[in-house]
């Protein structure tokens, strides 16, 4: 069998496949390093890297990157605060209607974002939440909260109830038992949930597009979209912005590989 005798050939084939699949990412980095305006005859290798694109990108999109960061961090905090206790309750409290809540969460995953945006626009206009960071945090958490509940509940179902009972016997209330016993052992699920909530929110485009109307609060995804709307003559700064917007994904893949795999599989099969 060639799986045993020729493992190196498989490695070569694997690298070749990956090179094709990841070429667009390479091209993004390459184009971002081209001198300004010279993108029409982009060289295949950035032999003479030029940082003008990044300078333009940071000057034009710097505030938007900060907005994206603030919204993403805010959404992670909100999502975990809301989702983790709920996940614990669904996993460990014996509730008769727990399955109905879960059913609702699964159904919510099927609701198209445009449906939410259609309705939120009017509600936000009345409440003065358009063009606001809290408004975006609340709307963006529609991705994070259900996901975090599903991921954390799956892990917390495996926790032995005796652990919490021991804390309760020691005189801790249910909240303290949750904070001091359940949270520390659920660390992995919390990290996975936090990382993915961050990525969802950081990459959000729909709510950025529909729930902001001015430049005051503008996530970087919308900044990129606005570049694309007009005729693009300066691709190097667009690609530099794209690279900057991809940094969280790249960092995550390097630093937190195992959580990424856990999140990908956990999100799909409950």
């Amino acid at each position, binding site marked *: 069998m060639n799986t045993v005798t020729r493992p190196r050939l498989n490695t070569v084939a694997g690298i070749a496949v990956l090179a094709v699949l990841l070429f667009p990412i390479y091209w993004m980095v390459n184009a971002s390093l081209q001198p300004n305006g010279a993108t029409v005859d982009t060289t295949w290798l950035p032999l003479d890297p030029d940082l003008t694109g990044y300078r333009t990108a940071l000057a034009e999109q710097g505030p938007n990157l900060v907005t994206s960061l603030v919204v993403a961090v805010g959404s992670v905090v909100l999502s975990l605060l809301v*989702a983790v206790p709920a996940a614990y309750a669904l996993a460990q409290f014996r509730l008769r209607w727990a399955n109905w*809540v879960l059913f609702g969460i699964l159904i919510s995953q099927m609701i198209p974002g445009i449906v939410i945006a259609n309705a939120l626009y*009017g*509600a936000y206009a009345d409440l003065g939440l358009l063009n606001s960071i809290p408004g975006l945090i609340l709307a963006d958490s529609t991705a994070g909260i259900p996901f975090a509940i599903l991921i954390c509940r799956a892990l917390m179902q495996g926790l032995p109830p005796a652990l919490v009972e021991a804390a309760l016997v020691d005189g801790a209330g249910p909240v303290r038992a949750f904070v001091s016993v359940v949270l520390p052992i659920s660390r992995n699920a919390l990290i996975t949930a936090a990382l993915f909530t961050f990525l969802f929110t950081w990459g959000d485009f729909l709510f950025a597009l529909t729930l902001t109307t001015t430049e005051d609060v503008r996530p970087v995804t919308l900044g990129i979209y606005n570049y694309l709307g007009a005729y693009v003559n300066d691709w190097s700064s667009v690609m530099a912005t794209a690279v900057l917007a991809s940094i969280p994904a790249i960092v995550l893949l390097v630093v937190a590989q195992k959580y990424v795999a856990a999140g990908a599989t956990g999100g799909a099969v409950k």
Partner: protein
Amino acid sequence: MSTTATATAPSRTVAPARPRRPGAARHRHRRLVTALFLGPAVVYLLLFYGYPVVQNVVMGFQQYTISTFFTGEAPWVGLDNYREVLGSPLFRTALLNTALFTVGSIAGQFVLGLGLALFFRRRFPMSGVLRSLILLPWLIPLIVASAVWKWLLDTDAGALNRFLVGSGLVDTGVPWLTSTSLALVAVIGVNVWIGIPFNTVILHGGLQNIPEELYEAGALDGATRWRAFRHITWPMLRPVVSVVLVLGVVYTLKVLDIILGLTGGGPANATQTLATQSYQLSFTTFDFGQGAAVSNVLIVVSLVFAAVYLRLNRRAVDE
């Protein structure tokens, strides 16, 4: 619930440190704890999923336009929105495009994802690293992927056309995103690229769960590779395949970022789908009533697939 387990005997005496509650009070306490843990999530889901769905259904029957925001009035118009939207030729285009986009994307993602998953089941140096690098297209923001592909597919200076012209495969640049006959194909191609990682990871996970002994037994019976795939791999992988396909359909139906970023639904509505049409009706022509009508059609289609998903999931749990 776990708190009840600690109270071994019902006692009316008040313990000094922590009073043990009699039945009714304990019951109330239990409800309070449940509300504390689960309440915020339930309230959030009702406000940000429940309300929008109900509101979309209501708006579908209303003349809900930009003036509604000033006057606060949204007159009831019965089925007018649906009549107008469903009767327009654009709706039929969008419906057809949605079907083609969904079927094309799912077929491409699934076949390529399954191929890669089978490939990565082999054991070879660096397979783990390569397998996680493959996730990159799926982790970057969708609008970034659109921007990169818009540049790659550019008619005059895009890398793809430069390669095709340079190698003599075509004479002049192919107008990938600006030709009415090619734009949908190009958009499907980009969506396939984005979806391959997800399909690969999930299917690879499914393959890892198939016991090795089955293949050993198959090899003893003289099963060739193809027959081993047909009679062992495929039947064992079926539940995972169903989940991947149904989730793929549901996610693809909602896709908006990629199409808006690449073509904006154009040229001449060649890439208009139900999701982009709903967006444009609501947010460019500010006719929220008609936008809601289209998105309600989208909800119904999604829920049909949701029902299929839940059935499959339940069966998977039962087994």
